[in-house]
């Protein structure tokens, strides 16, 4: 009797819903306030990067000869902001306050009230438009190069780790060799060979960033390879390639996703470094790296040219790092 009752009870009960690893991870990720805020901010920046250059009243190429190097409204007010902070420090150390910058009303009467929220650059172009044009370029570089790195690195690492033995040995030796080459040399040569093409720069950076990805994937693959389900697949006569694709790749996704979110900022930094060297995006296009390197040269007199692009870059990098950390915590099965 008792057995029948239990059976009925079991049949009558609601089926218990299993929570997959992914559902768990998503729940934990969305519980992480820093990561969620970062995603929202990134989304806003990306949206502005698409919208602003297209709808701005000041086209990104337009030189306003009467508004060269004009400060943004109110930014240089000595009563607040950076200038104030610097003067506090100086007074604290017993120095006289820094010389006040020219008031913008004297400097650029034309620019006031024209909506140059970030000021204008040394050619009189609107910095707000250009900052978000640069945002688009930088984010594109970040994503494209990361996808290239992801593609090469995952395939290479999974193949090496799965085949193992001598092949693995040689493949990883090759990675070691590339590791011992300075990154910047490699990128410069690639760009010299293939020309200073916009897209090729992305590919060149991606072609350098895949090494770490390959190592991570290989390590993961090596440990997965010993699992029973791979043995079962081998016994069933599944081909090597199919095992890599169907069984190994889905299982290395976790660490790879985390690494991707950390590669994007690394690539954006690499691009800005190349731009700083003058090897990056060319005029009239721009990127955060170009804007920052221009701004860094002018920072003493025209600090806004550095502050706004640098601030945007830093915010973006912060966001990617917070998302990466959040994902790592969310995907870590030990952390449940």
């Amino acid at each position, binding site marked *: 009797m008792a057995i029948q009752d239990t059976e009925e009870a079991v049949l009558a009960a609601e089926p218990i819903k299993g929570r997959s690893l992914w559902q768990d991870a998503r729940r934990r990720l969305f519980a992480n306030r820093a990561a969620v805020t970062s995603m929202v901010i990134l989304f806003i920046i990306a949206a502005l990067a698409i919208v602003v250059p297209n709808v701005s009243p000041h086209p990104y190429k337009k030189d306003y000869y009467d508004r060269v190097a004009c400060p943004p409204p109110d930014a240089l007010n000595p009563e607040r902001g950076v200038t104030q902070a*610097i003067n506090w*420090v100086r007074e604290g150390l017993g120095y006289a306050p820094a010389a006040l910058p020219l008031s913008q009303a004297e400097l650029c009467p034309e620019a006031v009230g024209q909506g140059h929220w970030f000021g204008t650059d040394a050619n009189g172009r609107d910095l707000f438009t250009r900052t978000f044009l640069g945002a688009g370029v930088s984010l594109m570089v970040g994503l494209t190069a990361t996808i290239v790195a992801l593609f090469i690195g995952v395939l290479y690492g999974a193949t090496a780790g799965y085949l193992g033995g001598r092949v693995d040995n040689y493949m990883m030796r090759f990675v070691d*060799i590339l*590791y011992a080459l300075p990154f910047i*040399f490699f990128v410069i040569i690639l760009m010299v060979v293939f020309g200073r093409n916009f897209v090729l720069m992305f590919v060149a950076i991606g072609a350098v960033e895949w090494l770490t990805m390959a190592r991570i994937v290989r390590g993961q693959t090596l440990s997965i390879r010993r699992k029973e389900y791979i043995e079962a697949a081998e016994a069933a006569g599944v081909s090597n390639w199919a095992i890599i694709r169907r069984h190994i790749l889905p299982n290395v996704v976790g660490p790879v996703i985390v690494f991707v979110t950390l590669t994007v900022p690394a690539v954006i930094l690499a691009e800005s470094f190349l731009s700083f060297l003058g090897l990056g995006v060319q005029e009239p296009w721009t990127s955060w790296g170009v804007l*920052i390197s221009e701004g860094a040269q002018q*920072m003493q007199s025209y600090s806004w040219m*550095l502050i706004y692009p640098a601030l945007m870059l*830093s915010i973006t*990098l912060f966001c990617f790092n917070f998302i990466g950390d959040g994902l790592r915590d969310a995907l870590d099965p030990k952390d449940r």
Partner: protein
Amino acid sequence: MLRYVIQRLVGAIPTLFLIIVMCFFMMRIAPGGPFTQERALPPEIEKNVLAAYDLDKPLLQQFIYVDSFVCQQRFAMWQTGQPPDAAALSGRGLQYVRGAFRETGGVQREIKCLGGYFGKLLQGDFGPSFKKKDFSVSELIADGAPVSAILGISAILLATAIGVTFGILAALNQNRLQDYSLMTIAMIGITIPSFVMAPILTLIFGVYMGVLPVATWGGGAFNHLILPVTCLALPQIAVISRLTRGGMIEIMRSNFVRTARAKGLPERLVIGRHALRAALLPLVSYLGPATAALVTGSLVIEQIFQLPGIGKYFVTGAIERDYTLVMGVIILYAGLVIALNLIADVVYGLLDPKVRFD
């Protein structure tokens, strides 16, 4: 362990060779050359310039060839013990053989007759710089390397000290205020690129406050080092503190730490003697390549602070196609990466009892 080290060193030889081959041919095949200019040289002059640097030879010969004429003469010289008859020789071969004879003060058995870049390299000659006239690559590197090394080593020591402290403090207070604030401070290092950080720090401390020199090497004086070393260390502090934090959090959950606590060890010893050793393992693997990169200089820091290091040669050499100079710094860098990785692996093995060197 000695066996392991020797094995690794022997294994490094083909790696280094492949690196040299790859870079050499990549550089030479890339379009443009050291003497390509906006205004082309007159053909005769160009021919002479190219010949002077062996650039008119086929690519493989530029890499390595056996100078059979010099070989013969030197061999004869070694057999007879006499300098060769000047009448029998002419041109470059004569000077080369005679020079060698004078330098060694006699005849030696070694037959230095390999030519081409790699041939000279085997004899320890990095060649002349193509762009910086009157300087050999060895001289340029010998001048700049100490500067870069001092900066790099100071930066990595500073970064390790601060980064490890931050990482441990953050891990022990995981998900509390200290954790978040320390990690946010650390993260500044990787979110603000050095070419932004350097001018800002210069402006604040050098110009507005006037307490530190704005630029130049100043013979390596301490106050000249502060700003560049800080700029070099900041990104490393970020990475090191995150690595330490990650490793520490994982280790503090492990069984042997629980055992150590269970037997009543004070927390200080649990961390210092047991946990730290294991938690620093990921850091050890990271520090090898990171040190190699820092010690070979940074273009940005050298440019902004006007320091006479070697970091700039990686970029300017590649852009100007100063073949020998680029090869020189790349060989230096690759050798350092290989050596430091080996050291890192040995240290790893000493720290981790699970690793056996056989």
